[in-house]
């Protein structure tokens, strides 16, 4: 496999004349915006990373399994291009948390896609903490439905805690796993309801892509294409006439007093280009969007673009992981597939000031994968087989995602000293978590432990407040609001300060809830596409 960075040097990467819309970033947000607009408008997509060759996916899968490679190696993350700082109270492993390339971070993602709950839009009112969103759940259902159709979601109607929905998911949910049936008995005793998980993963052939064939390496790579990734929409946009330029790093947004004139980007040959357009959509993720706004500072806007509020980069949030694992004295059949089939959202809406929303996840891949185990260690032959048999087979685990509240001291800024290979200051993820999230992790741990105890498991590990880490969801850094003094974008996701600049990203989330964000990102991206379309008419 040729590293993608060494390929495609020769492609034409010059700007497109007379572009209506310039989309920056080719992840799901940018892909959906481009795909929605490409039919009627001249669209150009600028993407910093490469166009990965689909034929290389099995080799990437081998990297995912082999110990010689770290996770960021699978999608070629982590060189000087991706340098970053992490000056906060909590280290942030940024290059584990994103992919740069056509498809964006969905190349690596897990693909769990649920809607936010109604109360997530009104945290201040309903839970007494954080701001309310300037929009409500009721504003989103048509976009949620469309997002579920676009991504291809397999889901059921069996979740009693989910917000109201209008029609079934496009595909039936994946059936529960054998280990789910073990958990079900314990949860039944404890009065905890389990239900299916909406997955952006084909439970049957969908949209020209294969059904899931059980490779089991979903995160970080699905060789069959059954797991949705945003190459789907970027390719579809290109088929409709959009120009997609890979390895085009936008370094600055040239502007006048109230609008963006051009995106300045550099290409692998070192050339610098200017892409002009009538409308700009920033879709380069919750860390690079504020970075680009800061890098576009000027005499007029010395604190960065779209930053009259001073809030660009502020309120960086992620979801936190909590988990308890153990072993049973019977087989639990883990690691056949790499995705989840059961969760419980039962405790989600108990959230208030002290404890945040959280959801429970029942693992299908607890404990080691035998293939990976076989490649480490000093034994082979019968001894190795004996070790594999003793270490694989009876693990169980319950995970959770927990909400973190927005805080001003948790932010994305520019590192004062460090620059990347093009001389641009690197992003500094200055991450602070806050006590409510830590208390929520403890609460999740309590429930997780009670489930494992009821199951008769011996608890062998806990990820609690001291061990927790991020779920790689970058939210809050250009928050949405009605008042330009305390938000960066308006309820339509257009920046208050620049009339032709929209943001499609979880960076607009005022609060994060505890649901994986990408379905909401997709819904908001489709809504942004409608707004841009209306503005261009």
């Amino acid at each position, binding site marked *: 496999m040729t590293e993608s960075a060494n390929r495609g040097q020769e492609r034409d990467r010059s700007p497109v004349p007379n572009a209506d819309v310039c989309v920056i970033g080719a992840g799901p947000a940018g892909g959906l915006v481009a795909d929605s607009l490409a039919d009627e408008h001249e669209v150009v997509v600028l993407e910093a990373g490469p166009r990965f060759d689909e034929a290389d996916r099995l080799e990437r899968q081998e990297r995912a399994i082999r110990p010689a490679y770290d996770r960021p190696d699978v999608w070629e993350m982590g060189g000087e291009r991706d340098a970053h700082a992490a000056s906060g109270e909590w280290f942030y492993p940024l290059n584990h948390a994103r992919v740069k390339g056509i498809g964006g971070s969905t190349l690596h993602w897990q693909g769990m896609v649920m809607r936010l709950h109604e109360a997530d839009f009104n945290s201040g009112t309903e839970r007494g903490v954080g701001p309310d969103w300037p929009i409500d759940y009721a504003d989103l259902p048509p976009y949620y439905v469309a997002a579920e159709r676009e991504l291809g979601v397999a889901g059921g109607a069996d979740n009693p805690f989910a917000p109201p929905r209008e029609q079934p998911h496009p595909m039936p949910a994946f059936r529960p796993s054998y280990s789910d049936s073990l958990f079900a008995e314990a949860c039944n005793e404890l009065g905890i309801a389990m239900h299916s998980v909406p997955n952006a993963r084909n439970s049957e052939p969908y949209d020209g892509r294969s059904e899931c064939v059980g490779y089991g390496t979903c995160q970080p790579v699905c060789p069959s294409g059954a797991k949705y990734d945003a190459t789907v929409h970027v390719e579809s946009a290109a088929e409709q006439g959009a120009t997609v330029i890979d390895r085009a790093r936008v370094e600055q947004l040239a502007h006048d007093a109230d609008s963006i004139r051009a995106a300045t980007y550099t290409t692998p040959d070192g050339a610098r280009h200017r892409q002009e357009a009538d409308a700009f959509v920033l879709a380069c993720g919750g860390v690079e969007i504020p970075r680009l706004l800061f890098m576009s500072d000027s005499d007029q806007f010395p604190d960065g673009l779209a930053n009259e509020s001073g809030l660009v980069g502020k309120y960086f949030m992620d979801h936190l992981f909590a988990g308890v694992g153990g072993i049973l004295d019977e087989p639990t059949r883990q690691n056949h597939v790499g995705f989840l089939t059961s969760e419980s959202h039962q405790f989600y809406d108990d959230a208030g000031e002290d404890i945040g929303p959280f959801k429970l996840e029942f693992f299908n891949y607890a404990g080691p994968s*035998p293939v990976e185990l076989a*490649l480490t260690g000093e034994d082979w032959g019968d001894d190795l087989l004996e070790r594999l048999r003793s270490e694989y087979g009876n693990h169980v685990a319950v995970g959770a995602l927990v909400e973190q509240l927005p805080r001003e001291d948790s932010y994305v800024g520019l590192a004062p000293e460090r620059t990347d290979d093009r001389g641009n200051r690197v992003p500094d993820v200055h991450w602070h978590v806050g006590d409510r999230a830590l208390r929520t992790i403890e609460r999740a741990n309590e429930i997780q432990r009670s489930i494992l105890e009821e199951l008769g498991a011996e608890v062998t590990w806990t990820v609690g407040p001291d061990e927790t880490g991020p779920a790689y969801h970058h939210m809050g850094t250009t928050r949405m609001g009605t008042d330009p003094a305390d938000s960066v974008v308006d309820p339509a996701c257009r920046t208050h300060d620049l009339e032709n600049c929209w943001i499609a990203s979880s960076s607009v989330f005022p609060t994060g809830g505890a649901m994986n964000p990408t379905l909401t990102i997709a819904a908001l991206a489709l809504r942004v596409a409608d707004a841009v379309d209306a503005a261009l008419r």
Partner: protein
Amino acid sequence: MELSRRDAVAALAALGIGAGAVGISQVGDSGSEGPPEAELPDDAHVEAVAVAVAEVLYPSAVTGVDEFVSEFLSARLSREGHSDGVREAVATVDDHAQQWHGEQYVNLDDNTRDRVLRELGTDTAEEDPEGTVAERVRYYLVNDLLLALYASPTGGELVGIENPQGHPGGTDTYQRGPQ
């Protein structure tokens, strides 16, 4: 348990036989420790040594190792970049067998074959396609063969998982209880 052609095909499906061009895993640049390319062993010899190594690495319960390894290798050796690494690893094992034990690796008894791999340090080395000699032999030979076995349905079944990671074994097995 008999390894079948299906296992080899499955292992290949898991690992990818892609016809990638020259890649980072190319070993040609990685120092002067390996023999020059002109002396790299041919396919038949690579296969013979790899089968002999696999007999050490694979549990005694598996049979059909010859055919499995040969099927797997023929595709692995056609992968540019990877192929030279495998050949170099085989040459290293052979050299060591000759110099320390006065025999070709394939002619050694099982215990001595095992010893050669340990004397080279491949048991304690962590795999690394661009590392030391031991780390490269671990990557290209030892772990390639272990990966082939344990990503195949038969290898998985030995451990109790008929759809191991890397094998596209469908979506029924995860729902099934222990048999």
